[in-house]
């Protein structure tokens, strides 16, 4: 059970990272990166690191994504 969950989570992480690479729309890429961070946070909580999981949820999925969104809003949304 636990191993299935792990493998599923790791596969989802790789899929979301590839989706960040493929997406042309930068706004969508930033949101996908946010979900990647949240899944990373789940993985670390599962690995017995609640401190780091909390930091990743607040900083990685929250602050970093907001900063990316602001930067995209101040520059351009399309990737050429």
């Amino acid at each position: 059970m636990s191993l299935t969950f792990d493998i599923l989570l790791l596969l989802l992480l790789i899929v979301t990272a590839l989706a960040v690479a493929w997406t042309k729309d930068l706004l969508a890429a930033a949101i996908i990166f946010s979900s990647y961070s949240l899944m990373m946070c789940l993985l670390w909580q599962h690995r017995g690191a609640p401190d780091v999981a909390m930091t990743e949820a607040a900083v990685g999925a929250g602050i970093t994504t907001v900063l990316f969104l602001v930067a995209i809003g101040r520059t351009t949304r399309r990737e050429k």
Partner: protein
Amino acid sequence: MKKALVAALLIIISIPMLIAVAAMPPHGDADSPVHTHVSARYIEHGEEEAGAENLVTGVLLNYRGLDTAGEVIVIFTALMAAFAVLITHPGRGEESGPTTAALDPEPGTEPESDSKAPPPISPVVSFMVRLLTPFTTLFAIYVILNGHVTPGGGFQGGAILGGMFIALTIVLGEDKVRTLLPRRAAPWMQGAAVFAFVAIGVIGAATTGYFLGYPTDASLHLVRELMMVVIEIGIGLGGAAIFATIFLQMEAE
């Protein structure tokens, strides 16, 4: 062509990495070098030596306190650098704008002009943010003050506070939220983490002879806990102010 080349290069790079990974001790092995030297001692004696039930906080604030002080200085430096990069000259703001079109080689690559006003915030989002604000603040304060007992600490609580501030800025507008970060107090709040570290470090140096030294006497464990909580509050307040200021500075035209 270029992408295929890069992908081939990365596969070549990843092969030695995978070979190294296969030769590592099995995942979760309790006899691997990570678990047998320093961390065994930390787990065994960390609670009475460092004075924190949460060993991660103990390592961050006591065993590796100087590292954390350096990290606090890193985010403070990042704030100052962001200020320096994004500074706008109030008198001559017109200069940078028109040059962009002349430099642009193709007409199709001109930056889109954001002439239309930003769309209004949905009432659902606005209501939910305002409803959740007190609870988020309470949770952030709990996380900051209990950093040495439960998971959490200054950075986590500071990031939650900063995120709440950013959400409020988006919903209410900058002018109303600015009262939470008044211009006079802002530099002191942004530097709160550094000030807390220096103050506690000097107090430690005066009493024990080492910078950031904590009293080791068992009867003084409340004093030690208080010193840790002061540092955590400083980190939380400073982190929240720094994240919020970087957001406001990037958001400003």
